[in-house]
């Protein structure tokens, strides 16, 4: 038996760390960001896991390591946007001031309606473009189609990539109903605009009464009849005008969608799945990992945000709680004889307890040393309870993470320690970047 239980539990920390190291491959972001072959980094994951912050922090880090970076964010929190100096939503990349080093950081917020308008304006003559932009159906589509935001994010990504002004593009994906939506969006919109129905709807305009189309025209009248009944005749006319206009102007919408999709599969693209150590977020992350594999999209790893650690990891929740109870129960603490001896245990002798002024020092004007001692005991009990709570959280986070790792041991992972507050400026983003790159597991023990 060890006379000091804390001593006995200390060595247990080492095998624990070793296990953590071997349980998953460690994701090293710096080589990824430094590699000139890395041209696009896509951050994806479910809502509320710090995706946008991660994208911004990676962008800043890459820029400060010498690259010319643009971060495409979808819907950043105001203060995060302000931290990068992009408080205006104008759909144009802006240089972020105040970065260190030779690189450059640009940032932009996606305005999906404007991006859509730009696509129309770029591909139609002015008169036709004006007709499309004024079409009520287009207006709803560009603002509200489930997937428009996802599609426009990909469209913008394609545009930025083809401008070739930046050597690295970091993309944050939209807060989708499901994290998978943005992968489907280009295909969905492409196949929709290229689909049978659209061909049916546009057939009368293009094909007139050609004999071979009689079958289609039957289908058409049934269709328009039903849709007309359902939606009202005017709407259907609007749809037809819109589709006809889109069809002739866009032509290869599907080709564009396919090109975007291929861009995502290209070797210069790296997907990072972002998650927090919570059941739902990691479940979504697992789906995403599986889906990326199925689509042959290059996944480089998982960023696990908001992981808690403790500098006092050797003190278990149970022992902390037991100690807190000791302190809070005066019968035990104030017992004469043996128990009181704890305070003057051989360990403590020669330190400072016998010198009363030191014990009283924190609040000399307030009551007796005994009072102060009691309030310090109470505080210490609080500290221990806080620690017990932290250790339980930590254990739960590890279990959740380990379940993910068991399912996907091939996925490299980096854990980012939780911050107590929000990020408001470049220094905060830089700090997160440091945490992202500090892959040594003991770093996580500090927070």
């Amino acid at each position, binding site marked *: 038996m060890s006379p000091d239980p804390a001593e006995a539990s200390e060595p247990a920390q080492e095998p624990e760390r070793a296990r953590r190291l071997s349980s998953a491959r460690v994701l090293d972001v710096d080589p990824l960001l430094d590699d000139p072959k890395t041209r696009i980094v896509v951050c994806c994951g479910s809502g509320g*896991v710090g995706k946008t912050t991660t994208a911004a922090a990676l962008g800043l880090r890459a820029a400060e390591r010498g690259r010319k970076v643009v971060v495409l964010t979808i819907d950043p929190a105001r203060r995060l946007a302000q931290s990068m100096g992009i408080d205006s939503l104008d759909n144009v990349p802006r240089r972020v001031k105040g970065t260190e080093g030779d690189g450059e950081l640009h940032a932009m917020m996606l305005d999906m309606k404007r991006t859509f308008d730009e696509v129309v304006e770029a591909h139609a003559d002015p008169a036709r473009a004006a007709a499309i932009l004024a079409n009520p159906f287009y207006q709803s589509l560009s603002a509200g189609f489930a997937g428009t935001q996802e599609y426009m994010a990909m469209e913008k990504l394609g545009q930025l990539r083809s401008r070739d002004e930046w050597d690295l593009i970091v993309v944050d994906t939209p807060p989708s109903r499901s994290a998978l939506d943005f992968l489907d969006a280009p295909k969905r919109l492409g196949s929709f605009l290229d689909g049978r129905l659209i061909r049916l709807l546009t057939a009368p305009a293009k094909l007139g009464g050609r004999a071979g189309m009689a079958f289609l025209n039957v289908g058409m009248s049934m269709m328009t009849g039903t849709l007309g009944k359902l939606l009202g005749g005017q709407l259907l006319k609007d749809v037809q005008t819109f589709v006809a206009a889109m069809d002739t102007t866009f032509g290869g919408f599907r080709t564009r969608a396919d090109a975007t999709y291929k861009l995502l599969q290209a070797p210069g693209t790296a997907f990072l799945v972002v998650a927090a150590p919570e059941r739902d977020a990691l479940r979504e992350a697992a789906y995403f990992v599986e889906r990326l594999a199925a689509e042959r999209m290059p996944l480089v790893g998982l960023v696990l945000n908001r992981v808690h650690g403790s500098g006092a990891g050797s*003190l278990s929740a149970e022992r902390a709680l037991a100690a807190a109870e000791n302190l809070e129960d005066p019968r035990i603490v104030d017992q004469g004889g043996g128990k009181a001896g704890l305070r003057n245990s051989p360990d403590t002798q020669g330190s400072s307890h016998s010198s009363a002024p030191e*014990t009283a*020092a924190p609040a000399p004007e307030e009551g007796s040393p005994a009072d102060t001692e009691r309030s310090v005991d109470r505080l210490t009990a*609080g500290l221990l309870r806080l620690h017990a709570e932290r250790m339980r959280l930590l254990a739960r986070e590890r279990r959740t993470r380990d379940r993910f790792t068991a399912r996907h041991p091939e996925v490299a992972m980096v854990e980012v320690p939780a911050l107590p507050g929000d990020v408001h400026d470049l220094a905060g983003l830089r700090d997160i970047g440091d945490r992202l790159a500090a892959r040594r597991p003991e770093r996580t023990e500090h927070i």
Partner: protein
Amino acid sequence: MSRLQVVSGKGGTGKTTVAAALALALATEGKRTLLVEVEGRQGIAQLFETEALPYEERKIAVAPGGGEVYALAIDPELALLDYLQMFYKLGGAGRALKKLGAIDFATTIAPGLRDVLLTGKACEAVRRKDRSGRFAYDYVVMDAPPTGRVTRFLNVNDEVAGLAKIGPIHNQAQAVMRVLKSPETAVHLVTLLEEMPVQETADGIAELRAARLPVGRVIVNMVRPQVLDAADLELVRTVERSSVAQALSAAGLGGARRGGNAEKLVNPLLEQAAEYTERYTLEQEQRAVLTELGLPLHELPRLAEGMDLAGLYELATELRKQGLS
């Protein structure tokens, strides 16, 4: 108490959990509630640890006191076919439309139509009566889209009226709006005590109010327990490290002298307390922002063991205690 309870919130705040807990809480004393999911995520099935829900109302839980919770995952395509069948008796033709991609078209690209179908189904459940003239469900709880989209989702009238000026979809939208804008409905927003979700909640409430949709309550989810009180926080800043070391030593955690085990605990423990203080201050600020919204404010605790079925019942009990049912 409104019979249609809509629950929204920023992603990651646990709105599905709160919606489910609310459905359980409302199902007391033999009452029957319907929990509706509209985003096809199967979040309810995951929460209740059952297989994926079909497009069919099915009982998923029994509340204390004999109440029942039914659940329904509304699929817009099936809802549209349902609707076509109901109004046009379009059995086979409906399937043909589906083959052509018309259903897909109507439910995904026609903006607002999808939402009318989803909200329409929920409103139908609210108004449905059984043969004896009693409401089929005492309450309908909807796990709605996130705060950023909820006003648009619920305000189908504006969306659809601009497109379908006449016709059954138009009428359907009108009927749905009559329910949604009446006191029959309450829209609750779930948030965390963090800056972004609180800001989004304030914005969401402003949008809902501008659209004249009835805002219900603000529910703060995952509230951490208060471990240190104001006096402790004050003392943390001034306390002598050595006296904390001695207290730890007295509690049986090793030596208090430099290098002793108790002494080695002091810095990390005080560091954790400093983090706690920082977070606590931020949380107090956010709580003040929420209080200013002038809506009933409720807090649900963060469950120490994470969210599971037992935790859901715990939260339901808490909601009941706070008078939400």
